[in-house]
């Protein structure tokens, strides 16, 4: 018996029907058609399904779709503002911080959550914050540089 859930996704009111045991990841991808959030493991170990739930970074594969009732969900599709990319999206491109790109949405959402909380992180802080996002192509080097460069740019912009 499907449930009718009313929530907010990327700043827009949204509603969907879901099975009670369906995950938020499944609803985002198959119900609402936002396929930017990716599935790598469904056990909360790879980070490719990272979204913000009420501003908190979570693995959407371990959130039940009904839990989003009355809450706000932010996905990769919600980070660009109009025609301007989020600074992280721009820096990931400039630093070639992605190769196959399957982990990139998860990394950018997670890094955005980091910079919201800690605008000027050290390399070690970035690496430990992003330890839940697996990448098999890049060896992480350029990802970490892209995030550090983004925080530097945000600092300049904030001054």
């Amino acid at each position, binding site marked *: *018996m499907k*449930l009718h859930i009313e929530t907010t996704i990327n700043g827009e009111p949204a509603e969907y029907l879901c*099975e*009670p*045991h369906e*995950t938020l990841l499944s609803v985002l991808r198959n119900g609402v058609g936002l396929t930017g959030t990716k599935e790598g493991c*469904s*056990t*909360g*170990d790879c*980070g490719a399904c*990272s979204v913000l*739930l009420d501003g*908190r*970074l*979570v*693995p959407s*594969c*371990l*959130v*039940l779709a*009904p*839990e989003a*009732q009355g809450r706000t969900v932010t996905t990769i599709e919600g980070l660009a503002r109009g025609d301007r990319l989020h600074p992280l999206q721009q820096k990931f491109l400039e630093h070639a911080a992605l190769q196959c790109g399957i982990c990139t949405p998860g990394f950018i959402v*997670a890094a955005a*959550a*980091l910079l919201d909380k800690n605008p000027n992180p050290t390399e070690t802080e970035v690496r*430990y*914050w*992003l*330890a*839940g*996002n697996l990448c098999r192509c890049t060896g992480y080097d350029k990802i970490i540089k892209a995030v550090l460069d983004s925080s530097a740019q945000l600092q300049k912009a904030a001054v």
Partner: protein
Amino acid sequence: MAYHFRMPAIRYEAPRSVAEAVRLIQTDPGARVLAGGTDLLVQFHAGLRQPTAFVDIKRIPELVGVSLDANGLRLGAATAAAVVCEHPDVRALWPGVVDAVHLIGSTQIQGRGTVGGNLCNGSPAADSTCALIVNRADCVIAGPKGERVVAVENFCIAPGKTVLETGEFLVAVRLPRPAPRTADAYLRLIPRTEMDIAVAGAAVSITLDGSGMCTAARVAIGAVAPTALLVPEAAKALVGSRLEDDALARAAAAASVAAKPIDDKRGTVAYRKSVAGVLVKRAAKIAAGRAKGH
């Protein structure tokens, strides 16, 4: 390749009160309490658990939140680990608890996983259990017969098994205020720097007197027995010392003796026994350093 089909009629409940939650799980023994879901939903996806209903307790006010009062700290069982670790009082008074809770999985898992869920999953390797034990934490349990309190070292009774009876669930964890010049620490051994389940874990609480001598200690080790173990002999080795090397060595040896680990995909018996001692030694030094600082 265990294939259990899912009955299409699994329900999702979001009770607004403890009483309503108790009624739901008492009347439907197949129902499972959902806090963060970082253990329950992994087991569900793997077909290892087949609940008739998920009872989401995060909409019950008393279940979520961190509060400090005269006699100590109260952690709502469904409070996300990240919230616990960000709380200034917890960071100040229970750095060891923050060490442990912060190590539960990645940042993403921290945003969902809860201290209550970590306890109720009943894993011998649960990171938070040891830290709560050395801090004399109590588990507040709600059920059909009302509320009862159990000391955390008695909460888990076997791998995956707790004292919770049918219709009961964990409402909160309470920690008494630490005595003066008392501090704790938690360390664990994992092959990588993040993301792994503890191969071995150790929590130590140390109380010092004015001259820096250890007057009280509690030591607990994890992932080395069917449940987390309180190791009184290790504590005894520290009391009366100034955490010199031979006292630390005796505490480490006591911990290694107390450890009753198994061989599995994460570690060997010999390895866990040896490392449990090393972690106790190192955690004791950190705790003592913090106690001096207070």
